[in-house]
């Protein structure tokens, strides 16, 4: 019966809904662009070397890995889930891949194994969260320890160097200027944008993040939608791990640690709330860029690296404050009416 269904009344004459005319400055990313321009100008005035082509390209290269991770994280946060084990997962995957390359397994197989590991890891985080009805924050916190521990066990804590063996992906500069890794991250952004805006999966991600009960009653399987999102997230983490390994030329269990916080921060600064259901990739792109510029600016201004850590933490708190305050303004946080 289902297949024979048709529209009850196909529109005879196309009608229109007014196209939204949202002024560009009302987007959260526009605000980010302004901040970024201001930061760049200030840094440039203090240290003119900021505006050299080589420095700008360095920024793009530095944010490539963060960008790929943040793309996957954007989908995950919109679906109402989170994965803070991505840093540990990168550590594990890059160690395994590096060890396989060192033992002359070629390149293809180690890369595939690395990516499969991160996909599986992310799936584990999502599946345990669904099965045990625990927040993915908690399951991913637990798996952070598991992944890191396995990486330590197999490497015995040692450095896995592959200098000169696997550099193409991470260090190639197209036309001697543009980093290949940055292009890869751009592709990641576009893929996520396509998924979110043009596919059924994208609609499911928004729907389960916005109102899981309504999604379920509309025929969506909440569990499968979320698990698919976790799998995709794992894929992006895997690609990021490979790019990172190729750029650094070595791996150790602590590789990637702390990057999950930066990625979540970039996504939230870009306007995706931790509560899910909202957000877009444009915001994430500029959120990642902001992270890159701040990091670079702090280096340029010779700020103590320890204080850089402090800065990122405060930045993430500030972005949370902004997102909460903007929902206050819209009245979403109004006290529940006594009824």
């Amino acid at each position, binding site marked *: 019966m289902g297949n024979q269904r048709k529209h009850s009344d196909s529109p005879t004459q196309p009608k229109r809904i007014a196209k939204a005319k949202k002024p560009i400055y009302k987007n959260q990313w526009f605000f980010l662009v302004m901040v970024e321009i201001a930061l760049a100008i200030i840094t440039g005035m203090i240290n003119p070397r900021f505006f050299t082509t080589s420095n700008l390209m360095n920024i793009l290269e530095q944010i490539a890995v963060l960008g790929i991770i943040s793309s996957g994280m954007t989908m995950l946060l919109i679906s109402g889930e989170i994965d803070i084990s991505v840093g540990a997962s990168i550590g594990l995957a890059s160690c395994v891949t590096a060890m396989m390359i060192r033992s002359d397994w070629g390149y293809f197989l180690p890369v595939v194994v690395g990516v499969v590991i991160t996909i599986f890891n992310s799936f584990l985080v999502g599946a345990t969260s669904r099965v045990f009805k625990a927040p993915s924050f908690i399951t991913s916190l637990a798996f952070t320890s598991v992944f890191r521990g396995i990486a330590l066990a197999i490497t015995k804590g040692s450095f896995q160097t592959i200098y000169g063996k696997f550099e193409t992906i991470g260090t190639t500069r197209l036309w001697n200027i543009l980093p290949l890794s940055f292009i890869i991250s751009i592709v990641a952004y576009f893929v996520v944008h396509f998924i979110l805006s043009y596919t059924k999966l994208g609609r499911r991600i928004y729907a389960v993040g916005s109102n899981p009960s309504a*999604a379920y009653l509309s025929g969506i399987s909440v569990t499968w939608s979320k698990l698919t999102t976790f799998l995709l997230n794992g894929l992006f983490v895997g690609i990021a791990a490979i790019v990172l390994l190729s750029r650094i030329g070595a791996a150790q269990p602590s590789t990637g640690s702390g990057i999950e916080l930066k990625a979540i921060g970039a996504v939230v600064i870009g306007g995706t709330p931790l509560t899910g259901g909202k957000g877009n990739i444009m915001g994430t792109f500029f959120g990642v860029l902001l992270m890159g510029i701040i990091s670079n600016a702090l280096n340029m201004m010779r700020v103590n690296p320890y204080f850089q850590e402090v800065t990122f933490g405060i930045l993430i708190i500030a972005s949370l404050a902004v997102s909460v305050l903007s929902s206050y303004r819209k009245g979403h946080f109004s006290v529940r009416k006594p009824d």
Partner: protein
Amino acid sequence: MTDSETLVRLENITKIYGTHKVLDSVSFDLKRGEVHCLVGENGAGKSTLIKVLSGAITPEDGEIYINGNLIRSMNPRKAIELGISTIYQDAELVDSLTVADNVFLGSEQTGFLPFVVDKYRQFQRIKETIDALHIDLPESSLVEELSASQKQMLQIVKALHRDSKIIIMDEPTSSLGLQETEALMEIIRNLRNQGIGIVYISHYLDEIFEIGDRVTILKDGEDMGTYDISSIDVEMVIRKMVGRDASMFYSKKNVPIGDVQVEIRNMAKSGVVEEVSFSVRKGEILGIGGLVGSGRSEMVSLIFGVDKPDSGEIILNGKSVKIRSPRDAIRAGICLITEDRRKYGVLTGRNVIENTALVHNEVFRGPIIDRKSERLLTADMIDKLSISVADDDQKIEELSGGNQQKVIIGRWLLDDAVLYIFDEPTKGVDVGAKEQIYELMTHLVENGKSIIMVSSDMPELLSLSDRIVIMRDGCLVDILENSGVREEDLIRHFVGVDPKMGGTKTNGKPKKTQ
């Protein structure tokens, strides 16, 4: 009785939600040592009135006098200080603490060591109260081990320990069996003799005639008067509860009714719905009436695959369909427009197009979204249901309640279905939108669809339904042909008063003791 005997006087209380007057200048008073009952249909304003008295909400207008003193701003804490206790149907108790701990929660008794609770002293004090009431309530057992009626007793004990002079009981017997109800009645008499004033709310009219001294009747937020129980009978109470003018009724077009299209056979889930069977014909609107908690919405969730029934079969157009999830139901041609649109309907933060095309894209389309077609379909639906929308990126929560409801209904109209289930289709919807939703439903049945409509709104039930299924305590008790049925007939069926018997519960409280 003299005026010093008056514990509570509420004068001209008015409460407004949005544009809707939930209470319209209602007056109420309670004397020492009396049981004053409040009756009215679902949504008549009983609960709102007691919330005003217990300080949970602030009325727009009116005065509250407690013991003769005007109370300017009432809040829950002040209400407790003034000796007002409310006993809710779903008890607000801490399950993991003992009976005694719950009674003394917030005012724990300490011994000679400060900060250390003196359990023995608590037990002693509570035992006196329990013995005085002649009830069975072990003071050291955990609340989670108690039965529903024991929890209710516990709340009464708690109220007495707070030295309450005014006790409000909201549907206290709805989860009690027959014997437990009797025991509760005994306690109420006991309390009354101690000079405590009791506000008693119940759907069961026979209880009111058994225990009450006076009764105040509410209808659509209006005060229909206060009567001595001895001067009034069940028939008269029912007549006061209903009887609206014709303007509240919608005159539905006559739609020819065809063959049976939908059959529900022996749908059951233990403790919730018991063996319900009925059928819906082509072009028919089948109304489902009953009190809140009679199992109407639960039965609908069983049909739509949200809950798993213990048994039951659904037959659409002569073919038995297997439904294990809403997705199966939708594919088979069943739609459910839920009651709580905020909780189960709208995708907050998403625009009107995504909200409208949700089911269409999910169930009937491939993996890639056809953005042009969903846009056209939405535009068409907006036009057809006259939904006012500013532009294509307007978030659904920015629309009015009526428009939101129409978007949710529109979601189910993009594709053809066989059976449309409406659960409270016009709850929280303004009058204009109400009319449009009724027209839309009529249009659906004209096109040969079947509709099941769950509704607490009497005029709605009576003006739209071709037949009315009556549910009570999870059972289907009757199916009425809707010709010449009056509001009072329905009420009588809902509460289980047999017109010939006068005031007895014909099918009172079946096996709902757990």
